[in-house]
């Protein structure tokens, strides 16, 4: 049983913050602001952006009409491409994306069934694929090589086998292939 504070002897309430801890609090805030600034500059000024809202589709009809009805790579300008990828259990269509070195590729991905992931190894392309929604990112492939794109969201029993490959070839090779 405790007695409430009496009026005769008022208690002085205070935070009682140790000066070291006060400085730590200030420093923490500064650190977080610095990091957040670095992230914001990279994101909104330098172009390291995350996917945003891109559009809605009906998963039941995507392969019948619209851009996803013909999945694959299309060239739209000398070094510009777009590719529409359909994800389904358990493959990506197309399973292969061939582009020349230096190509700027806009990638649109959606799903015919459940959620999937679309992540191109060694790049910053990483998207959640949600049926009914279109995921989009644009990326420039500066290096020659093979870059697998893996399904990164559990989608069922065959999830571990679900992947495709981006093949970035020297420009001459791309021309020859007549792609």
């Amino acid at each position: 049983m405790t007695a409430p504070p009496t009026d005769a002897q008022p208690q002085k309430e205070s935070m009682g913050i140790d000066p070291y801890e006060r400085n730590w609090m200030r420093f923490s805030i500064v650190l977080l602001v610095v990091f957040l600034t670095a992230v914001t500059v990279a994101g909104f000024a330098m172009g390291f952006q995350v996917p945003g809202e891109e559009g809605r589709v009906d998963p039941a009809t995507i392969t019948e009409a619209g851009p996803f009805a013909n999945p694959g790579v299309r060239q739209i300008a000398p070094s510009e491409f777009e590719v529409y990828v359909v994800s389904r259990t358990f493959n990506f269509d197309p399973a292969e994306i061939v582009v020349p070195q230096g190509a700027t590729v806009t990638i649109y991905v959606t799903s015919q069934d459940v959620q999937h992931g679309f992540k191109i190894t060694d790049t910053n392309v990483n998207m959640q694929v949600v049926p009914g929604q279109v995921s989009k990112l644009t990326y420039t492939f500066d290096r020659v090589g093979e870059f697998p794109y893996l399904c990164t969201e559990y989608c069922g029993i065959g999830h571990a086998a679900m992947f495709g490959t981006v093949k970035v070839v020297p420009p001459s090779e791309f021309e020859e292939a007549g792609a």
Partner: protein
Amino acid sequence: MDEPVTETPGADADGGEHFKPTGTLFVLAIFVATIILLWGSVYVILLSRGVTS
């Protein structure tokens, strides 16, 4: 026993030692160095992997 309430850092309620958490600062300095190192290296990886827009 009347004791004026002061802002003395870490003073015991019964008027004990004044405790300066210097060891804490040392540990936290290591923590901060680690944060900057690890977070920074992931930031660098982001920048090295190319722009997405």
